[in-house]
Each structure stands twice: as C-alpha cells, then as structure tokens.
C-alpha cells in the first residue's frame, strides 16, 4: 500500500473533522477521494502530509511510519493542496526554479515541466498575472518537479476550463500507466473521478462511507428501466399491482428496477394492453452521481 491509515482522527476544537479514517491506497492506482465540500478531504490530505498533527491513529506512506521517516517519505511525494502555493512576484519559471533549488533538481527539468503543463510561452510572466487555470497548471508542475512516486492532489482541476481538465486527466492517466506513479486525487465532482479513477473512497462528515475499486462502486449501482408514457402516475400504479418495483415517478416518465430484457418487453406489452402509449422505454445505469448523493446523504450510522 502506498498510503495506509488506521483509525485516523482529527478534532478541530470540539468538532471531529476526520473520524477514524482507514484509507488503503494501492500502488499504481488513481485513488479518487470523493466527498462534498467540507467533508474533511483537505484536512485528511494535510494529515497525510503531517501539516496537521493527528490526535489518534497512524499513517503509513510507502509502508513507512511517517514520524520516523518524514524526509524519506516526503522526497517521494508531490502535492498540491487547495489553491496552488505560488509566489506572485516571481515568474512561472522562477517559481519552479526556486523549488528546483530546494529539491536539487536540474534546470532542464524546470523547462520540461513548463512544457508539460503548456506554460513555456508564459514562463517569464509574473504569476500574479496568471489566470486561475494557469496557476493551477503551475501548481501541478511544482508537484511533479521532483518526479515523485506519489502525487497528492487536492481538487487539481478547480478553475480549469474543459480542455484543461481533459489534459490533466490524460496526464495523470499517463503518469500512472507509463511511469508507475500513484495518484491520490480529491474532488467533490464525481464525474471527474469517474473518468479516471481506478479506486475510490467516499467521505462525508469526516467518515469514510465507501472504499474500493471503481467497478465495485459501479456494481452497487442498480440498473433501471426508464419509461416515457402517457399518464405516468396511473401507469406506475398498474406496474406496482403487477409486482414491479417503481423507483421514481414524475409527469413525463417513470423508472422501474431492471430485471431482464424479457421483463422489460413484458412491461411494454402490459402498458400497451392497458391503453398507455409508450413513447420510449430503455435501460439506464443508475447514475453514479445519484449513487454518490445517496451515499453521502444517508445519515451517518
């Protein structure tokens, strides 16, 4: 495991922000750390980097205890936390150069990073004049500068335009697939995680509600039959009487749990025979978005 925590707890005053968190981030994964704003994501990341001191539990990175191996661990971690930390009075290149001094990285690497995040053109412009997206890209370049084995990114696509988001996503996928990196990425947007993560952890109110591979999450997601018809309410009653489970009804459509192709055909026939016109009928995967909401909105047990 690249990241492993056990019973990690952090209290902010009397409020528990992170509750007994046990993360398992395997090597070579893109671990999506998902949760609504204020769920405790940034706090967890700061605990992982020892910027905050945990009150309970322990943290292991690369199977090493953090406190005893701080420098060795940090030399293999690149991070971007909240807004990128950039000196506004320096140019993009100088920001990287400054970090290169601290990490003893060559100048060549600075240029490589600039072109990787497509900032070569703006490299000699003061970063206070950068757009949010440019700052974010520079932040990612800073995190990647030391060629770390583990990248910890806190909402890295904040402020990026759709093209920028796609580029970052492709970059992270390449890093994992070709350079054997591990990426721990937090987000409040499921759509973003869904498109790149191999593993996912869902956190809400400081508690880990789900952790596993992406496909496990998809497996919980139950398929539905989406039916557009006349008089949806009566149609729903008819289906209920015939032992179908109606999930959702509104003026224009209703949804029923999916059982099989044949059953879907039978639903169609049943509705037609009873005088309902079926405009459309098809199988849908319950959106992960909805599932995410279900998971995070369930009161904590």
């Amino acid at each position: 495991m690249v990241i492993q925590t056990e019973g990690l707890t952090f209290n902010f005053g009397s409020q528990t922000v992170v509750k007994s968190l046990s993360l398992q981030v395997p090597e070579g994964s893109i671990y999506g750390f998902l949760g609504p704003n204020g769920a405790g994501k940034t706090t967890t990341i700061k605990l992982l980097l020892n910027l905050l001191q945990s009150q309970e539990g322990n943290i292991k990175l690369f199977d090493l205890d953090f406190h005893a191996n701080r420098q060795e661990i940090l030399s293999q971690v690149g991070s971007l936390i909240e807004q990128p930390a950039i000196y506004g009075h320096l140019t993009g290149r100088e920001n990287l150069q400054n970090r290169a001094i601290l990490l003893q990285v060559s100048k060549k690497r600075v240029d490589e990073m600039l072109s990787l995040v497509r900032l070569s053109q703006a490299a000699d412009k003061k970063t206070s004049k950068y757009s949010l997206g440019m700052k974010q890209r520079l932040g990612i370049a800073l995190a990647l500068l030391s060629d770390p084995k583990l990248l910890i990114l806190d909402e890295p696509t904040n402020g990026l335009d759709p093209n920028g988001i796609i580029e970052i996503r492709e970059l992270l996928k390449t890093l994992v697939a070709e350079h054997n990196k591990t990426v721990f990425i937090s987000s409040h947007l499921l759509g973003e995680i869904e498109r790149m993560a191999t593993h996912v952890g869902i956190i809400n109110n400081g508690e880990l509600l789900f952790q596993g591979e992406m496909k496990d999450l998809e497996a919980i997601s139950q398929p539905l039959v989406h039916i557009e018809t006349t008089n949806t309410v009566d149609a729903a009653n008819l289906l209920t009487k015939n032992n179908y489970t109606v999930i959702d009804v509104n003026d224009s459509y209703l949804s029923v749990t999916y059982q099989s192709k044949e059953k879907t055909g039978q639903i169609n026939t049943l509705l037609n025979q009873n005088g309902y016109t079926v405009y459309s009928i098809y199988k849908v995967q319950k959106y992960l978005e909805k599932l995410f909401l279900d998971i995070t909105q369930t009161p904590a047990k």
Partner: protein
Amino acid sequence: MKGFLLSLQSEFYKSRKTLGFWASILLPFILILLVSIGFYTHVDKLSHGPGMMLWLLFSGAVLNIMGALLLPMYAIFIAYSVNSIEHKADTWKSLFSLPIAKWSVYSAKFLYAVILVFLTLLLFALFSIGFGDLLGVLKPGLKFLDYHMEWTLLQIYFKLFLSALGILSIQFLLSLLWTDFLKPMGIGFVCFIAGVISVGVNWDYAYIIPYAHPMLALKSMMGTHKRGTPPTQIVIDIFTHDVYVSLAVFAVVFVAGFFIVQKKSVK
C-alpha cells in the same frame, strides 16, 4: 545541514526582487547620500572643524536617526517581510511538505532576516566611510582625510547590529505566527514607544526592554568623553548590559520559535 543551506539559498532567490531585500541596500545608501549632499553644500560652515569633529558630525547625523528611530522600525519591517512572502503566497504548506527538516526551513529564514539586518548595518558603516572619504577628496576644505575612524565605525555598527537582534527575534516570531501586518507592527510599535520612554526617563532597568537596546547602545557610546571638551579618542565598549540582554532574548526566542514551528499546524 544541506537542507538548511538550500533553504537559505532559496530565501535569497525568492526575495531578491522584493522591497524587503532592496530596502537593506537602499536605506543606508539614500540616508548617507542625503547627509553627504548636506555636507557638500555647506562646505563653508564646516571647513574650519578638525577631521575628527567632521567625522563625528557626519556619522553622528546618520547614527542618531538610525539608533533612535530607524533601526527598531527596520528590524520590525524585515522580520515581517521575510515571513509575509510566505503568508501572501500561501506557501507555508508547501515549504513544510518538502523533504527538508522543519528546523532547516525555520532557521534558514531566521538567519536570512539576521543577514539582511547585518548587511544593512555593514553597508551603513561602509557607505559612511566611503562617502566621508569621497567628500574629503571632492572638497579638500573638508578635512575628512585627516582623520580615520573606519574601525570605530565598524565597531559602532556591529554593536547596533547586536542590539537589534532581540527586537528582530521577537518580531520574527510574531510575524511568523500572524498573517496580517498590523498585529506584529502594532505590538512592535507600542513596545518601541515604551523603550523610548524608558530610555528618555533614564530608567535604570531600561536595558531589559529589547526595543530600547539600539538607543541604549548609542547612549552608552556617547558617554565616553566629557561634554564640551573635544574628544581625542573614542572608546567603544561593545558588550554592555543591553547587548547581553539582546543576545539572550535572541537565543531564547529562536529556540522557543523552533518548538512552536515543530508543533504548529499549517493552515
């Protein structure tokens, strides 16, 4: 140790384009330039004085402003400036997640502030000597070249440097802990006023207030000759009570700050 040197190098790299850094060079330059212009334009009034008196007048004009007002304020400003660079850019979190020990990051920053103050005071001494000699060359009527007090000036400014370390360390810690400018500045200002008053009323224990040290350092030097009679020799006693207290405060605050940084959460 390597991390410490790298951090120090980075401190210089990132601050070399800031006002904090340039103030260290420009402050002595501008102040001494102005005094020199004053001397240059008033040759007739000053030309009958002996070389030693001229030097005392010349360096005294700068020293009085420095010791009485500028040095404590400057220490407050430098302490703020080296920390605010991180507060402004929100870079504490990235500094403390580098593979460099926390003590290295902290002490490199601390030392950098000390170096800036040292640089300023060294430049004050060097510019005083340089501009004095230059005036002597440009206006032979001013007998600057008749007398030499290079060593004395270096000693005086070294004493001032030591006397500023107490203030610098306290202000450094305050500026490290607080993001905004007003809190450390306000506290520094109030303490400085208290220091001025304590020296002004000749309080016996004024030397326990670090903010009074630069003034005390100057005062203790002024007393080496009797009023009215022209001095023949200037004796500088660097290690007086106030300098010892300043050094002690410096050491204690540095160590305390180190433990605070170790325990502190980074927002």
